């Protein structure tokens, strides 16, 4: 299989978000479930530049009903929304699935949509690109990689979704650096001092952040501590 990333102009729900008064950083479709008729239940992660209210968004976003809205625990201006809207507002998603491509990520930024999808082979890629170009006018391929399996389709990465917003940027940075440097390998490929040095933080700060990450993981797995 080939996984590829492409960009197209903003459309549908993404362009509606970028038209509102509040400044939007990005809008990502986390999951989509069919509703009766031609409507779809969308679960979104929206990053704003400032705090927003459900009332303000509902007033400005025509053609969609905000069913639920919650703020991320660690990121003040990141919100999780559940909305019901017309399928045509997520045309790229329906184009991918109707062409039997597997969508992995659909993220709207100002002026463009970033999309990651998997296809069977080169001919399949051409078919999908042709459909997308016919609908959106143009498409820019950004990158590709080969893959043996489907990986996580849209809405399939439960751990990532569950952890999203539960770790601060600093905690994520510490976790990723420690992972990439081999801290969690057996035997360890790097010491805590080396990671702290790489991140330019003290050993005690590193330790504290890693413990908080572990605590959040445990809380997710076992629930709040009694």
């Amino acid at each position, binding site marked *: 299989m*080939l*996984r*590829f*990333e492409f960009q197209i102009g903003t459309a549908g729900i993404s362009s509606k978000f970028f038209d509102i008064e509040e400044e939007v950083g990005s809008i990502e479709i986390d999951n989509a479930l069919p509703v009766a008729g031609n409507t779809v239940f969308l679960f979104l992660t929206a990053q704003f530049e400032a705090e927003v209210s459900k009332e303000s968004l509902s007033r400005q976003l025509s053609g969609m009903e905000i069913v639920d809205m919650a703020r991320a625990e660690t990121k003040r201006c990141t919100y999780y929304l559940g909305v019901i809207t017309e399928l045509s507002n997520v045309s790229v998603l329906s184009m991918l699935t109707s062409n039997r491509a597997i969508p992995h990520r659909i993220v709207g930024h100002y002026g463009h949509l970033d999309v*990651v999808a998997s296809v069977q*082979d*080169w*001919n399949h*890629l*051409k078919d999908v*690109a*042709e459909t997308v170009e016919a609908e959106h006018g143009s498409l*820019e*391929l*950004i*990158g*590709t*990689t*080969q893959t043996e399996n489907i990986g996580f389709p849209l809405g399939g990465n439960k751990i990532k979704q569950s952890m999203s917003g539960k770790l601060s940027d600093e905690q994520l940075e510490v976790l990723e650096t420690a992972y990439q440097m081999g801290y969690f390998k057996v035997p360890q490929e790097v010491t805590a001092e080396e990671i702290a040095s790489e991140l330019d933080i003290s050993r005690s700060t590193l330790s504290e952040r890693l413990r908080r990450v572990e605590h959040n993981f445990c809380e997710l797995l076992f629930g709040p501590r009694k």
Partner: protein
Amino acid sequence: MTTIILVKTVEQEPSIRETLGSVVEDGETVHFIRLPSVRCLGPLLQAVNPMISYGVDYTIRSLPTDYDVSELIDFAIESGADRICIGIDDRTVSGKARIDDLTQSILLHDAISGDVVVGDCTIILENLSYDT
């Protein structure tokens, strides 16, 4: 078998070595095609030494300044190329081989199809067939 190696930069030595070492076999013909932005292939090919180190016959061609992807496809058809190898200059944040305008034009061209293999340094389009 005939292979086209697109040379987009003189810093493409790892990609050329990967292609000659793991894709192309002894005795095959290789056409190095340089983009107009690449002024000269001499030092690069001296460093790689395709004939002595890899046992391949090769030619060097260049695309004109105002080239169109069709010229490349026409040459691939004319030479009966079985493969087109394109160096990977850069990767995306998530590690995917970055696709430039020329690579996109080849991938989405109507007249060419086959298999795509993404190597460490090279995108290999192989088992090529042409719709002429």
